[in-house]
């Protein structure tokens, strides 16, 4: 027997967990519990003090903490229970469909909770230092950009004065501006790839505004300093990402920030036996955002890394609603199963499978491309019939794309199709 029970457990109290909880409550679900390992709700938004959140949800440009506060207020107003300082360490699913969540906190130690459905909303973490392919001793003064962001924005202390940033992920770009504001000199941002990993807007407002150079196709080849970083050497790389001899430039600095992108935080999902997509490091989900384990849903950055918190909230609301439907025992027949195949530059899609019986009137499918494309088209087919061809001026790996599938149109094609296995194909085309 578990120590506690809840109809729905939500793991993670970031924007995804909060929106999922609010939406499940709106559907009438009473017995909800949010588990959050931090000392407050809000997730990564608490340290994202820059603005640009929520324009699409609230028609107002908010900072991260302000956006989070609006959702936290909904949780408080609705009196949805949550536990802070509580880390989930395991989830398992038994044959009768009950999920057992094991968690721990300073007050209660280790305890278990049985739930009928679980929503995974654990967010993501920064890619490890692997990107820094330099053998030998590591002096102090090397931080991941997110750690530096936490030091500066939450603890109010500066990691250093002269800074080089490796990797052009959004946190690195945002930190270039933050550290400049705080009086540091940011010398450059070096990016191994020939394109930026972050949003264009962040290049404009965090680098260009302060004349900080972005060195594409460059990497750090050497770090000087025994105890503390004294400087780094940066070289250009060729098309195989190998440093080109003779292009080395030395930068004197005391700090190196690494901003090499984010990956979903999915150790728990793996343990549960959820089928994982190797491209996103998130779970494979169907149109209801349900994973391969029935009654376990995923949303937000744990599913795939989002740039726009508005999309996280939207996706999470859907997960919350679907979890409530699942708990109510809504019986729908699956209808036709349509696999979504991505090819020719499109790397993955969320969802990856659609059951027509569960499909809403319009279904948003989100994905990323694997390269920078200019003046191409995004083409979508269902069973070889063209659904749409959208002209695209620019598509880049740093920016999520989306298409909307209209149920009536999909059903119309399915009724004419004589294929036994249905397939939506999303691809880049000239």
């Amino acid at each position, binding site marked *: 027997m578990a120590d506690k029970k809840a109809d729905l457990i939500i793991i993670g109290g970031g924007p995804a967990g909060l929106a999922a909880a609010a939406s499940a409550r709106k559907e009438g679900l009473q017995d909800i519990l949010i588990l959050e390992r931090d000392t407050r709700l809000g997730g990564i938004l608490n340290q994202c003090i820059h603005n640009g959140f929520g324009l*699409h949800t609230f028609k107002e440009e908010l900072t991260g903490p302000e956006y989070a506060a609006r959702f936290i207020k909904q949780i408080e107003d609705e009196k949805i229970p949550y536990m802070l300082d509580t880390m989930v360490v395991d989830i398992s699913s038994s044959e009768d469909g009950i999920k057992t969540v094991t968690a721990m906190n300073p007050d209660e130690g280790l305890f278990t909770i049985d739930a009928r459905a679980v929503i995974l909303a654990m967010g993501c973490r920064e890619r490890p230092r692997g990107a820094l392919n330099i053998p030998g001793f590591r002096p102090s003064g090397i931080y991941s950009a997110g750690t530096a962001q936490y030091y500066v924005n939450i*603890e109010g202390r500066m990691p250093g004065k002269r800074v080089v940033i490796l990797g052009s992920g959004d946190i690195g770009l945002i930190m270039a501006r933050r550290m400049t*504001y705080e009086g540091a000199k940011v010398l450059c941002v070096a990016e191994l790839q020939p394109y930026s990993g972050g949003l264009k*807007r962040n290049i*404009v407002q965090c680098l260009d505004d302060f004349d900080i150079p972005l060195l594409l196709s460059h990497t750090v080849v050497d770090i000087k300093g025994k105890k503390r970083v004294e400087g780094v050497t940066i070289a250009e790389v060729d098309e195989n990402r190998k440093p080109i001899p003779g292009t080395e430039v030395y930068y004197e600095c005391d700090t190196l920030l690494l901003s090499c992108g984010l990956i979903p935080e999915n150790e728990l999902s793996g343990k549960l036996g959820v089928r994982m997509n190797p491209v996103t490091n998130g779970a494979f989900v169907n149109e209801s955002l349900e994973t391969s384990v029935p009654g376990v849903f995923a949303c937000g950055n744990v599913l795939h890394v989002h740039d*726009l918190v508005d999309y996280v909230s939207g996706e999470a609301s859907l997960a919350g609603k679907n979890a409530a439907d699942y708990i109510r025992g809504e019986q729908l027949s699956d209808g036709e199963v349509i696999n979504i195949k991505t090819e020719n530059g499109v790397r993955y899609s969320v969802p990856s499978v659609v059951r027509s019986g569960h499909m809403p009137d319009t279904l948003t499918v989100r994905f990323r491309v694997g390269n920078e494309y200019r003046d191409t088209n995004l083409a979508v087919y269902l069973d070889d019939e063209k659904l749409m061809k959208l002209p695209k001026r620019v598509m880049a790996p740093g920016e999520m794309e989306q298409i909307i599938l209209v149920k009536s149109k999909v059903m119309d094609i399915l009724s004419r199709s004589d294929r036994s296995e249905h397939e939506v194909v999303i691809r880049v085309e000239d």
Partner: protein
Amino acid sequence: METRELTCIRCPIGCHITVELENGEVRSVSGNSCPRGEEYASNEVTHPMRTVTSLVRLKNGKRPVVSVKTKSDVPKEKMMDVVKALKEIELTAPVKIGDIAAENVADTGVDVIVTSNDD
């Protein structure tokens, strides 16, 4: 006729905007997906404006600093003046979202407001 290509920074969608100028005056704005983009682009080619987000010190709070922002945009060239002025400010907890941290910061005519709660 002069054309300028811009990336809208008002939201993470980052629309690619084209502005056509004649004698320094905006003739047309295209490529934006919402009215904010048009406003951004017209300003950007004539008098660029930015919201400044930063921190001020906090006494007696759970954390030693609290996040703030300019209530509306300030001229881009005044950004660093605003940031400098904020370094002189210390608030005392409790503080909540919307509290005024500084009035007319760096003579921009814009107030600075608190953006997180610390009670």
